[in-house]
């Protein structure tokens, strides 16, 4: 009997998904969308990106995975935002949503807005609704991305020069072949590669650090306004890591871009970020300036993260780790997702998911421990 019910449920999911896929194929794959459909207004003209209640779902055969479920935060111009969280908490999906690079039709943006302040035209675009053609103009040009795995992000069968020049000439069609090549060499110099004949090298002829530099050069080649760095240093060893981070920081100032830095390495965030967003199971649990998050963490999850990083000059027998695992992303509970792993649960935690409350102007947290502190404005 139970088997039958299960089968029925699976069939219902399939039917539901098929409807989503159809809708996706009809609307999201459209090449051109009338401008009125995606033009919006920025809440604050000093922001480069505003996420507004972004929901990105994956419609899988066993149910809907709410990878990103109602995420709201801003990226101001010229600042670095660190997005932190465990694996599978929706950091990367958030960034892929901006670029509209989700693996469709399973993964789709189900709701919310991503408002992009396009400097070149002075318009504000809702990236969740823009047509493919519009996105192609933005990708790699105004918003560029640095991926996690330098070993696999470059195409093995084309030369570095080919892949780098391709990006430059695509977004600057007026440039001649010579100019494009010069520009490519210039960006490579910017990331610290001055090797003779580098443009004729294939990716496999370079080391991991070099490749990541090439990937960064590719991201910078068109002077983007926003660089999304999805764990740019995870695959690299520590010395290279420091170099790459220094590089990113220098470059950010040089071309005055914003950076959305996605990482699970708190050390990297502390070093780089102006603002920090902490995500857990597809939602933001806490956000604030780097100082607030690191020195006055409010959410038990953030506190746990802070405790679980190794510290110099302190002796511990064993590194702290947050007990338990990230909950199954299908059929998430009604209550706070962190409840089962939390050490400071209160009565209210059994209720519905806590609202985001502001502790200060910039510091927000979604936890019942702080629910009544809002009025008093007290600090955690």
């Amino acid at each position, binding site marked *: 009997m139970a088997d039958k019910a299960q089968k029925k449920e699976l069939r219902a999911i399939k039917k539901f998904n098929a409807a989503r*896929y159809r809708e996706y*194929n009809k609307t999201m794959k459209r090449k051109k969308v009338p401008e009125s459909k995606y033009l919006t207004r920025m809440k604050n003209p000093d922001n480069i990106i505003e996420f507004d209640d972004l929901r990105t779902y994956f419609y899988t055969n066993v149910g809907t995975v709410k990878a990103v479920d109602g995420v709201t935060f801003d990226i101001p111009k010229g600042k670095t935002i660190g997005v932190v969280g465990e694996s599978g908490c929706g950091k990367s999906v958030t960034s892929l949503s901006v*670029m509209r*690079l989700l*693996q469709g039709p399973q993964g789709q943006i189900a709701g919310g807005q991503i408002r992009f302040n396009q400097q070149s035209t002075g318009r504000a675009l809702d990236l969740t609704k823009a047509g*493919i053609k519009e*996105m*192609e*103009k*933005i*990708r*790699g*040009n105004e918003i*560029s*991305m640095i*991926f996690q*795995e330098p070993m*696999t*992000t*470059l*195409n*093995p*069968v*084309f*030369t570095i020069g080919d892949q780098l020049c*391709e*990006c430059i000439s*695509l*977004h600057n069609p007026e440039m001649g072949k010579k100019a494009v090549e010069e520009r490519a060499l210039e960006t490579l110099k910017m990331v610290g590669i001055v090797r003779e004949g580098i443009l004729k090298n*294939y990716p*496999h002829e370079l080391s991991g650090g070099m490749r990541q530099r090439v*990937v960064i050069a*590719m991201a910078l080649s068109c002077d983007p306004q926003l660089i999304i760095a999805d764990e740019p240093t995870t695959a690299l060893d520590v010395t290279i890591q420091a170099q790459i981070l220094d590089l990113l920081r220098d470059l950010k100032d040089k071309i005055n871009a914003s950076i959305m830095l996605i990482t699970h390495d708190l050390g990297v965030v502390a070093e780089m970020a102006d603002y920090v967003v902490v995500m857990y199971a597809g939602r933001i649990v806490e956000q604030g300036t780097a100082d607030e998050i690191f020195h006055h963490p409010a959410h038990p999850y953030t506190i746990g993260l802070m405790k679980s990083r190794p510290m110099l000059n302190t002796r511990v027998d064993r590194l702290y780790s947050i007990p338990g695992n990230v909950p199954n992303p299908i059929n998430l509970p009604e209550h706070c997702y962190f409840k089962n792993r939390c050490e400071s649960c209160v009565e209210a935690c059994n209720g519905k998911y806590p609202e985001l409350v502001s502790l200060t102007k910039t510091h927000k947290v979604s936890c019942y421990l702080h629910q009544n502190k809002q009025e008093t404005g007290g600090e955690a």
Partner: protein
Amino acid sequence: MKQYIIKRLLISILVLFGVSILLYSIAQMVPGDYVTNITSGNPNITAEMVEQMREAYGLDTGPVEGYFNWLSKAIRGDFGTSFVYQRPVTEIILDYMPPTLALAGIAMVLELLIAIPLGILAARKQYSVTDYTIVAIAIMGISLPTFFFAAVLKRIFAVGLGILPISGMVDARMDYEGFALFLDLARHFVLPIAVFVITGVGSYLRYVRTNMLEVLNADYVRTARAKGLPERKVIGKHAFRNTLIPIVTLVGGMIPGLFSGAVITEGLFAIEGLGNIALNAVYAGDIPYLMGFNMFIAALTLLGTLVSDILYAVVDPRVRY
């Protein structure tokens, strides 16, 4: 590179020796040799005559001596005289090669021309109606028995509609020349090629589709999209160059197939090609022809792998010899 090729060729010679021993023992082990086949059931033939004939055909020596006799001549390029045709084996192979080459060659080019674009299309639209349709047709093609499908096609196009000849290579009642002869040949080749392509294209298509799916999920394809490249270029340039790498192996493996031909298809359509003759040689126990033909195919197989290994280096910069 040059050194690598020379090394490979030397190894190939060793392999060919092994292959020849294996082939000769199998050919000898087949029950009923050529003499038994042509004499059995004939009451006028005495045991003495059989002995004499065995001696004449060189079948009286036993497998080991027979093999070395064959080998000593083969090394000098003499593959002996076919029992059935009473002509040198090399001459027969050269004579019957053109129809086989035409049939298999055209069919294979068509197969690649169909399999690659459709495989890519199916992969791009995975789980869509297009994908399911293409894959379903491919599987239908793979599972169609050649002889049955050939019969159906003959029934429809030759008997029913009467627009194509039923079998053979030229119209026996006419005496065409020049372009008219070519047209007549072409008409006779339509059905065999159709059978060849439809039953064979499916496996290549599925191979291309699987590879393309793998490549489409690769990080560098995502990078290409993140650069802002239009989808046409992402697929046509970045993804396609990478699917070419496994496809090259396929092409190398196709080379021997060009000459061995489709034994069954040729037989069904009475096309006088190498495949058809090889089949008859097996029935008759024609050891010299079988040895010559099989060694030829073995050499081509080795050549095919060598060619695909060299092509690897051409399409994949990571491979260097």
